[in-house]
């Protein structure tokens, strides 16, 4: 069984270590992965800013790269991109019946990373060990828009040594929102500081998420708070794949 793996562009650009960890995890579980080189990004930043037509060529590239007969399944490491492809591409392809159909077919065999492990492979204990206190950000796209609530928590629960502490309003938006972050920095800043504060208040040493863009944002927020004295200790920011790959 061949799996087409979609890490999301931020993994390719900024955080290869997250992608590497995810590949390790999936390969140990016996998955045969492929990562087609002919695509870059789902392009949701364009659609979400209103540039639907600009997103069209980008979306076509993603479908061409991932909708291939040799791939049995599609697994996305980033919930947000997965949501864009299965829920938003139909808007982009509304006048293109061929790609619309291909998107629907692809959506039927698509899984988000944690959902794939727990609900498709039926695995929760992956033999990981991570001895530290962890809190988990329930990102909007994974939790609300894809409706994946239990799988990440089940996976974390099975990690040896991991002590989970729930943060207040764990499913409140971190304020990333794609270009929103750049266009409305004051509001986005206020949102991420509040998210960071709820993380800090748990006392946990590690913040874990299943959506890479949120991690970029939260990490940036914590780092800024650390420099200006609002935070007096280091808090690690990790993708859940890195925890599942850990043998610490």
């Amino acid at each position: 069984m061949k799996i087409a793996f979609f890490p999301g562009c931020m993994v390719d650009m900024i955080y290869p270590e997250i992608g590497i960890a995810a590949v390790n995890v999936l390969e140990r579980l016996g998955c045969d992965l492929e990562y087609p080189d002919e695509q870059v990004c789902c392009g949701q930043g364009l659609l979400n800013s209103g540039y639907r037509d600009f997103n069209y060529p980008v979306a076509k590239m993603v479908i061409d790269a991932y909708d291939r007969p040799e791939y049995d399944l599609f697994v996305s490491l980033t919930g947000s991109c997965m949501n864009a492809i299965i829920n938003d591409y139909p808007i982009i392809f509304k006048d293109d019946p061929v790609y619309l159909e291909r998107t629907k077919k692809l959506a039927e065999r698509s899984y988000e990373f944690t959902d794939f492990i727990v609900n498709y492979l039926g695995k929760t204990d992956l033999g990981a060990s991570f001895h530290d206190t962890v809190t988990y950000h329930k990102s909007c796209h994974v939790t609300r828009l894809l409706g994946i609530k239990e799988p990440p928590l089940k996976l974390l629960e099975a990690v040896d040594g991991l002590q989970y502490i729930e943060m207040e309003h764990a499913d409140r938006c971190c304020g990333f929102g794609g270009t929103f972050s750049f266009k409305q920095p004051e509001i986005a800043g206020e949102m991420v500081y509040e998210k960071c504060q709820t993380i800090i208040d748990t006392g946990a040493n590690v913040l874990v998420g299943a959506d890479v863009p949120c991690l970029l944002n939260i990490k940036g927020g914590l780092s800024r708070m650390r420099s200006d004295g609002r935070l007096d200790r280091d808090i690690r920011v990790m993708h859940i794949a890195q925890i599942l790959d850990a043998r610490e």
Partner: protein
Amino acid sequence: MNVLYHNDVTLRERVAECLQDDFKHKAIETAQEVFYAKRGALVEEMGEGWQELRLRATEIRNHVTENLDYYVKLFAENAEANGYIMHYAPTDQDALADVIDIFEKHQAQTTVKSKSMMTEEVGLNEVLEEAGYTVVETDCAECILQKAESKPSHIVVPALHFDRDAICDIFTEKCGYEGTSVPEELTHFLRRYLRPEFLNADIGIRGCNFAVAATGSPTLITNEGNGRMVDSVPKVQIIFVGIDRIVPDLQSLDVMEALVPRSAVGSKMTAYFSVDSGPAHADEVDGPVEAHIILMDNGRSRILKTEFEPMFRCMRCGACLNICPVYRHITGHGYGSIYPGPMGVVMTPNLVGYDEIDTMVFACSLCGACSDHCPATIPLHDLIRAHRIEIVDEGKNHSNEVPVFKLLRKMWSDVGFYKFAMSAGGPMMRLFADSSKGALTVNSTWMPVVKGWTSTRDFDVLSKDRFRTWFKNHKPLAAETPVQENQGTEGGDA
């Protein structure tokens, strides 16, 4: 149209002002927490029943929207049979003219009002006052706003931005109040202060939560009892009804009445709930002798048969404001519309058009919490994005941002260019980065575009190597457990 205010300052300036106002900021945050907790407890108590109710409400509201002509006619006929005098107001100007006619006919001087967003929308108070009439707001919050000459910051609790000390000061200065800021004392004062106003008023003006077509009844959900006084003391009554307020019958009203107080303030019911049936009959002592209904469109029907049609289902409960992480920080005043928060971001451009609004529809992270909480299952965040798409399609976007999006399109649809951009951009970013953090920091706020981010957060730099390069070269790990095909089920567990 009186939907927008403070439009002479930009959204960014309004937001800055809200963020500086610690009291306002904190007040909204606290109110959200309270509503959130109370609503959450009630919803949990109902279990699956809550979702069923939402779907039922959605069906009912869709059914009315799809058969709007029929239901408008049915409501009007039955209201007339109850003795109401019906006025159809396609625009705000028509509605205002109708009201002035009624005032002139009765040579009225004074009116008492209970809270009504529609009268706010048409700017009724200003028009009446200019024409020399006295307007008295009798809802506690509206009365505070009127005295303070302030705008509503929430559609359900409009004076959320004033605390009791501020209210005490306002009453002292404007109404001759001499007491303390103890809430009970303030409300007792207001009661005494308003009582003569009710008795003196020539006309009562109010809104309508739902209009029941089968019985021709406007309804009113309130908590203070002032609505009922407005309804029953003055001899003439004017009720503003939006064409999007109609429900078919009392059974469907029941569904809405189960959803609205829970969604709005986290209560099972409100203190007062009136279902009216026209002016006083010959054998009745109380009630108005003449009652008018102004059935107003004012741009609402423009969204019929468009992707914004789901907004016709809106019950004005405010649940979307109460959960919104943006509203939380910028308050109603940040939006500069009497309809703020998610519902306002969808509705305001529908009412006033894209030329009038500033960047309001972009002040949203599309997190979807509103859609999740809306009792009418309106996909609010999708509709907010739909506005953005229309704005770009109509060429009303800012031209200075287009090159940035063109560059993104190029980078994301041309792998060769992407790889080149990464190899060139990485070293450049590292040049300006704080090397101990591996991130662009506060020192990078001079960079165009990037400064949007780095003004408030650090930005991790591009990695030296691409993940795709590693992937191509890596040797797959051996499986620890054999994978069985098709052992899975459907994705998603919610």
